[in-house]
């Protein structure tokens, strides 16, 4: 429709409602379709994200499913006292922290390095090909990933065949409790490093190429360009992701670990989430398990806020 036509339309609308501000009800009625669109989605979050928060009351009860939240007796903080005097729970917290630390040290920087490497390639075709290859495992579920790893690294697996010729063996890598945490980290890197590069590519591509030209004019070589132009350009994204990762420090892949827990035993593999699952859903110790979940949630929230403050103090934008 032409501009003239539209302005005629607008003036017609204005003429119908001279100066009177529409009441709230009439505004709501006018936009009724928008409510039809978003209210079901909002309902979903109310039921599946907010309503379960009430279930955390079980942490302060000797909860029993037969008595329900109303019938179960309240026990104050005793579930938390039990939690922090439970040797198994403390071991799970320690395992969680060690695994998280390993992942922050090794798995976190990997996508940055890969993105810088791929970005330095000139051939578009090779870059595209490598990207399609490294993104793929992100879309493969943990059950499949673990199945594949177990078989490739098994006694009859291909890698073992190769390594046997130089006197090494891969046959016990996947069931060895003493290196389980390192294996977990390697699996995470294999699955997620490629996908993790996407956000860094976006950050790198938003850097003004004039800066590179200026750096070259000043005599900066390839490494100095990375250090003085690229890294300040992606520092904000790195800070954001690091803040979020630190907030998740007590979350280490539940699916990934629960799948392999039988193979390496609880001493090496029990983390907070699996502790909650085995003690609560399977063990019926609902109060204790819920308390562990609350501990995890509260620590996560505090850490996100602290890490965000630290990131801001260091001069980046932080996450929020």
């Amino acid at each position: 429709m032409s501009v003239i036509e539209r302005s005629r339309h607008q003036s017609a609308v204005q003429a119908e409602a001279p100066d009177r501000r529409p009441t709230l009800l009439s505004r709501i009625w006018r936009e009724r379709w928008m409510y039809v669109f978003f209210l079901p989605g909002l309902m979903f979050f109310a039921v599946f994200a907010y309503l379960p928060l009430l279930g955390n009351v079980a942490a302060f009860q000797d909860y029993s499913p037969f008595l329900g939240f109303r019938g179960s007796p309240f026990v104050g903080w005793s579930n938390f006292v039990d939690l922090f005097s439970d040797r198994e729970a403390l071991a799970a917290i320690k395992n969680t922290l060690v695994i998280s630390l390993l992942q922050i040290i090794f798995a976190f920087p990997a996508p940055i390095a890969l993105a810088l490497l791929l970005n330095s390639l000139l051939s578009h075709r090779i870059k595209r090909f490598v990207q399609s290859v490294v993104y793929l495992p992100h879309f493969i579920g943990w059950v499949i990933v673990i199945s594949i790893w177990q078989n490739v690294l098994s006694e009859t697996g291909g890698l073992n065949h190769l390594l046997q010729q130089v006197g090494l063996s891969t046959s016990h890598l996947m069931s060895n409790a003493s290196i389980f945490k390192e294996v977990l980290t390697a699996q995470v890197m294999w699955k997620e490093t490629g996908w993790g590069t996407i956000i860094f590519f976006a950050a790198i591509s938003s850097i003004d190429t004039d800066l590179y030209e200026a750096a070259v004019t000043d005599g900066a070589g390839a490494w100095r360009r990375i250090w003085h132009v690229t890294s300040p350009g992606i520092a904000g994204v790195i800070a954001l992701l690091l803040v979020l990762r630190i907030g998740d420090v007590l979350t280490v892949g539940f699916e990934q670990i629960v799948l392999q827990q039988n193979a390496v035993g609880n001493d090496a593999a029990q983390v907070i989430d699996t502790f909650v699952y085995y003690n609560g859903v399977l063990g019926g110790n609902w109060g204790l398990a819920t308390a562990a979940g609350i501990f995890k949630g509260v620590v996560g929230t505090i850490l996100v806020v602290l890490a965000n403050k630290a990131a801001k103090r260091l001069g980046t934008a932080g996450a929020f």
Partner: protein
Amino acid sequence: MTARREQRRPVWMDEPSAVVQLLKIVVIAVIVVVMLYPFLYVVASSFATPEAATAGGLLPTQFSLEAYRNIFAGDVVTHALLVSVGITVVGTVLSVALTVTTAYGLTRTRDVPGSRFALYLILLTMLFGAGIIPQYLLVRSLGLINSYWSLILPGLLSAFNLIVVRNFFMNIPRDILESARMDGAAEPSILGRIVLPLSKPVVAVVALFYAVGYWNNFFNAMLYLNDNAKWPIQQVLNHYVVQGVQLSTVQDVHQVAPPPQTIQMAVVVLATVPILVVYPFAQRYFTQGVLTGAIKG
């Protein structure tokens, strides 16, 4: 045209030394092999004769369909595949529909009273999770234990996907939508006739995310489905391949079975193929700023 231009070295960038070039090529070749070899090995093993598979080797070569014949002779794996396909199709259709409508409903927070508050409530859910036990108790109190809906409803909407779609909608020029409104078009027809046709890339990406999520999910099945007969493929895979529980305890394997390894690998292949089929269709959109725009925004 553009591809050729991008391939040219910027004038200010000097030719890297031969050593650096070689190093890059080696590192990238190693990465590609490490990523692809496991897939090739699994596929090759699944099509190998039992003897070739047990003999080991970089890639078993003797071709045989024995493993697949064996799987399709029983009904546990086929049934689990059907369950997974059903959950994935129904779940993805519902999730995408609800994500698109909710995202569109939250695009005009200035005009629609209360919608900004709704948006904040939804964003906030990205910062906390209720925890495994409260989630489990909720699903149980809704009576969904042992129901297929327990695999769909808890993950029906993802706040992240919702924001990705909403940000894409926000970038559609307002003029187009305003002029349609002037013409008297109601919101449903604006969404269906104007917004959606312009949003194919983001809908494709989000549909892939949901579909892959439903297909790969075994956590919900492990928590909520006690009945083995209802298991989706990932849970069967977990028991049979990862935990090494013999398939014969779940299913009748007639005749002389090949060594479990070839059958195991065939199940892995069957569980992976649907993802490999869908992946290329959405993959070309990943780099088009569909996601990164949302993350920045």
